């Protein structure tokens, strides 16, 4: 970068921000520091500290009063005492309800992710390989549901799957007896796949659209059958998209509350629901906090996988 010395520079137009900038400079704040500090402070207060508070309260016990948990720090005869209870965590491992809920959440999230991948991959591939004009329209059709309310889409599914719902009425036309879909695990799978499908398709599309067509042609020229080409070229090259999309479905599905409570039955145990009930029904805040910390432990590895995969998707997008 170079700067020019012009003998008669045009007088700079005065704008309000020139004044603001001088004011900040006068108290020794550079613009750069402010740009970093504002979001950093906000996120520390409203993201990092709350997680620490959850951890702290998970070590307390329930008590009646306001707030409904015991103090960690107490002063007795002038000395500060720190009381930590591990009972909440012990309960998580010994009470079969919690263990079952965790295992069931992982199972439901995993199976839903597989189905979302099986449905989303062909869709993303089809969109990536269609002509420019169609590609934009199809992408819009994928993004559109993402902008409409999540809650209302889950509600739309209840109208579709209930006893006298659309599916059973169509089956009735063919004299097929109605299926029981609502309040089953099946409905929860459908709900998760339905609502999170755009999250699967978009990273896959970003990845697949950059796929080098010459590689596929080369494989076909060398006699590779379509299946072989797919499994030895397309799939390996789209791995970052597969992982990013899968994690974007799996991670939120683990903690899902709305879908199991609207579509699932009373026996559909999921950890998000357990946390909700601990908090709202039992008002056991420390127990709910322990459930949250344990849930965080479950999603930490998927989050790290996601971060890596997203960087890889970005890199391939930039390389082109």
């Amino acid at each position, binding site marked *: *970068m170079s700067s020019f010395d012009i003998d008669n*520079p045009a007088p700079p137009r005065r704008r309000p921000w020139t004044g603001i900038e001088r004011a900040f400079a006068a108290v020794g704040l550079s613009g750069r520091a402010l740009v970093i500090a504002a*979001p950093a402070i906000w996120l520390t207060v409203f993201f990092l500290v709350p997680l620490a508070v959850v951890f702290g309260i998970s070590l307390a016990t329930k008590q009646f009063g306001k707030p409904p948990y015991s103090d960690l720090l107490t002063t007795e005869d002038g000395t500060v005492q720190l009381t930590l209870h591990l009972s909440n965590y012990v309960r998580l491992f010994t009470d079969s309800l919690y263990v079952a809920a965790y295992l069931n959440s992982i199972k439901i999230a995993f199976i839903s992710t597989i189905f979302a991948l099986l449905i989303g991959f062909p869709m993303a591939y089809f969109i990536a390989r269609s002509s420019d004009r169609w590609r934009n329209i199809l992408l819009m059709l994928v993004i559109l549901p993402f902008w409409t309310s999540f*809650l209302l889409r889950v509600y739309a599914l209840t109208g579709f799957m209930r006893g006298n719902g659309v599916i059973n009425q169509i089956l009735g036309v063919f004299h097929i007896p109605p299926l029981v879909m609502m309040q089953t695990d099946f409905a929860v799978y459908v709900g998760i796949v339905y609502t999170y499908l755009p999250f699967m398709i978009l990273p896959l599309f970003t990845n697949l659209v950059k796929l080098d067509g010459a590689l596929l042609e080369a494989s076909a020229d060398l006699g590779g059958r379509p299946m072989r080409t797919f499994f030895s070229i397309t799939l390996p090259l789209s791995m970052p998209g597969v992982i990013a999309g899968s994690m974007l479905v799996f991670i939120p599905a683990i903690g899902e509350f709305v879908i199991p*409570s609207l579509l699932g039955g009373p026996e559909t145990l999921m950890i998000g629901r357990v946390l909700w009930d601990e908090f709202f029904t039992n008002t056991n805040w420390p127990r709910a906090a322990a459930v949250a910390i344990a849930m965080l432990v479950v999603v930490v590895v998927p989050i790290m996988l996601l971060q890596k995969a997203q960087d890889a998707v970005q890199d391939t997008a930039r390389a082109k």
Partner: protein
Amino acid sequence: MRRGWFLPTMAILGFVFLYAPIISLVVFSFNESKLVTVWSGFSTKWYGELFADPQMLGAAWLSLRIAAVSATIALVLGTLCAIALVRFRRFRGRTVLSGMVSAPLVMPDVITGLSLLLLFVGMESILGWPAGRGMLTIILAHSTFCMAYVCVVVQSRLADFDMSLEEAAMDLGATPARVFFDITLPIIAPALVSGWLLGFTLSLDDLVIASFVSGPGSSTLPMVIFSKVKLGVSPDVNALATIIIGIVALGVFAATIFQLRSRPKKARA
């Protein structure tokens, strides 16, 4: 590669799966009968009922105000964060900042909601602020997760930004702030608009976090819808959904056409 029948069939089935429930929801909002799934004649009475329901209207108004304020706060903070991450390549705590801003994107809602509630309760007992919970606490919570989305959108726009424009302005003697407002801001404006809209819709849509951090008397629209839907199907929710889907469809449609129109010009330049 040969074009087989497999991909088109799967794609069509996929889109049917995505749209059939929404279309049936819209169709049955014009149904006469209270039985949402049995057609008994065209009627707009559920729309009338919706607009005569003070609880729904009050909740909708509260949600709209919360969404507007949250999206605006998120826009400012998310943009600053994106600038810091894209432009200031190296600074202390960059990894921490990048992690903190992207974590809310995937954090399960129940954890975000619970952690913020516990923070607010703790802050109230130590600092006396925020006093009680309601609109303010919901705005603080929504701003935090919306800024993550704004940051992602703005970051991708900044990443393919032509730096020579800014350099030219600085060479001509513009101050950094002036460069930002006169050059950078107009160029990233489309990302800012979509970031704000994304924040607005996400805030309008949130049930779980709002349920944790709201107080008595501040029920947002999703909270009212959820309690109605839990009790069973209600046709006025269909009517409300149709209105929301209509607005969103128009908006996304307009944005796509706008993008398609402006593309050839860019290619020529």
